[in-house]
């Protein structure tokens, strides 16, 4: 068995952990009404004025003591960000010129990041923007799997699916950004489509599939078993066809399913920043009003007064042990069990970020079992103990 067989791993995030992530919510509008979207209050009114973005950029560029990171990722989201590509273009031009003028380190180390539904990708204005900023762009188009799976959730307001319109953008997108990934979301109804969807996406040429279950408690009895079955079936196909050499799927990871060794809070809420259309600052986009079902938005400052560092203290000192039940702290297969600070806040018994949601427990355990199966089986094929490397 080949000792030096390649196993493709997922790309690392650019400047991982070292870049300041700033998210501009450029619009609360979207052409779609994806059924699993956590942004439950889409509307046309919430549009980011250029002046608000400008003031936010000025604040972040001038407050070096408060924002010491040497790199920045400007995330543009919505709704659908490319609905406002002209605005985004203007904002980016402003940032570039201002950072250059101030001789700010961010001029030499920035990225412009987009997570888009892909419907406007071929539009001339979007393509002009891409050409203008090519080397600094990260563009992720969400293709949710097979047509059947994609159109289950990613629908227009009248309920019809968007798959056919989205995949028209894929060839050009992959030509322009060959190492791109896509994001796939799994809710209860999506489970039967997992295997087929991952293989389908790889077949389209999207080599990296970041696939995750939703954080909301939507799970029905038996979902964990069905989920596990799908992942085992996927594992079998990956190994049988040797797809592990050129493709990656985030469901399978060597670091998954071990006891906790450290006490880190892995969520970046608080270290990143989101800015809404009225200039309020948030620890993450999941704390904006239109992302929350049960709680008031959690504002941590604004473009006029700056960041309220008292409101950030809890985020910056939040750790795993302070928010997790004892069962989670002591769990033998804890690593990789994910949480979202915004979802935690939304679903907690009281308005706190210190209560971790455990609605994913069974799904995590199912994933760990399938993950173990995958690495053990792959290891047998390759003659290596892959589990031991975790």
């Amino acid at each position, binding site marked *: 068995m080949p000792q030096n067989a390649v196993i493709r791993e997922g790309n690392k995030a650019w400047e991982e952990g070292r870049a300041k992530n700033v998210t501009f919510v450029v619009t609360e509008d979207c052409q779609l009404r994806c059924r699993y979207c956590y942004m439950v209050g889409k509307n046309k009114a919430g549009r980011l004025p250029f002046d608000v973005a400008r003031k936010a950029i000025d604040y972040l560029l001038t407050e070096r003591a408060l924002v010491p990171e040497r790199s920045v990722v400007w995330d543009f989201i919505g709704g659908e960000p490319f609905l406002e590509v002209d605005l985004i273009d203007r904002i980016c031009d402003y940032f*570039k*010129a201002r950072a*250059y*003028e101030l001789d700010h380190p961010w001029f*030499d*180390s920035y990225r412009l990041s987009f997570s888009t539904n892909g419907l406007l990708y071929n539009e001339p204005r979007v393509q002009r923007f891409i050409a203008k*900023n090519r*080397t*600094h762009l990260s563009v992720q188009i969400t293709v949710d799997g097979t047509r059947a799976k994609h159109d289950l959730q990613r629908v227009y307001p009248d309920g019809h699916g968007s798959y056919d319109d989205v995949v028209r953008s894929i060839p050009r997108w992959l030509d322009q950004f060959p*190492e791109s990934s896509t994001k796939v979301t799994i809710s209860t109804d999506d489970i039967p489509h997992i295997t087929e969807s991952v293989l389908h996406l790889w077949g389209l040429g999207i080599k990296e599939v970041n696939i995750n279950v939703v954080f909301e408690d939507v799970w029905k009895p038996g979902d964990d078993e069905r989920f596990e079955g799908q992942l085992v079936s996927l594992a079998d196909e990956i190994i049988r066809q040797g797809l592990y050499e050129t493709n990656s799927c985030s469901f399978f990871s060597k670091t998954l399913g071990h006891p906790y060794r450290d006490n880190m809070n892995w969520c970046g809420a608080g270290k990143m920043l989101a800015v809404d259309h009225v200039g309020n600052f948030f620890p993450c986009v999941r704390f904006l009003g239109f992302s929350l079902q049960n709680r008031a938005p959690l504002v941590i400052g604004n473009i006029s007064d700056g960041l309220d560092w008292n409101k950030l203290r809890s985020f910056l000192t939040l750790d795993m042990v302070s928010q997790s039940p004892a069962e989670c702290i002591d769990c033998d297969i804890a690593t990789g069990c994910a949480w979202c600070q915004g979802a935690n806040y939304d679903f907690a018994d009281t308005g706190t970020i210190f209560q971790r949601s455990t609605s994913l427990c069974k799904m995590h355990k199912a994933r760990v079992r399938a993950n173990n199966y995958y690495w053990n089986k792959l290891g047998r094929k390759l003659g290596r103990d892959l589990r031991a490397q975790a």
Partner: protein
Amino acid sequence: MKKTAGEAVGKITESERDEIKRLFERKNGLLELFKSISDASHPLYDRLVQDMGETATKFQKWWDGKSRQYRWKGAAGHHWEIDFETCEIFLKKDR
């Protein structure tokens, strides 16, 4: 961006990597900024043009210097690329 195609011809140190990475990012940043302020009347224009020239020169000098120092294999119709993650230098065919 991962690029695994091409022949691995050498490896540099992390500080050399940081050096070229900064020059690479700056060169790209200046070029892309120029697309927004190519009007000569813009207050940043002169500084930008000069900076572009200087950075391009430093960039090329780095490659020239390191390729001589490390004696990387070269070939007509090929160029060198760096993998910023691994610090490896690859010889790749021109498109």
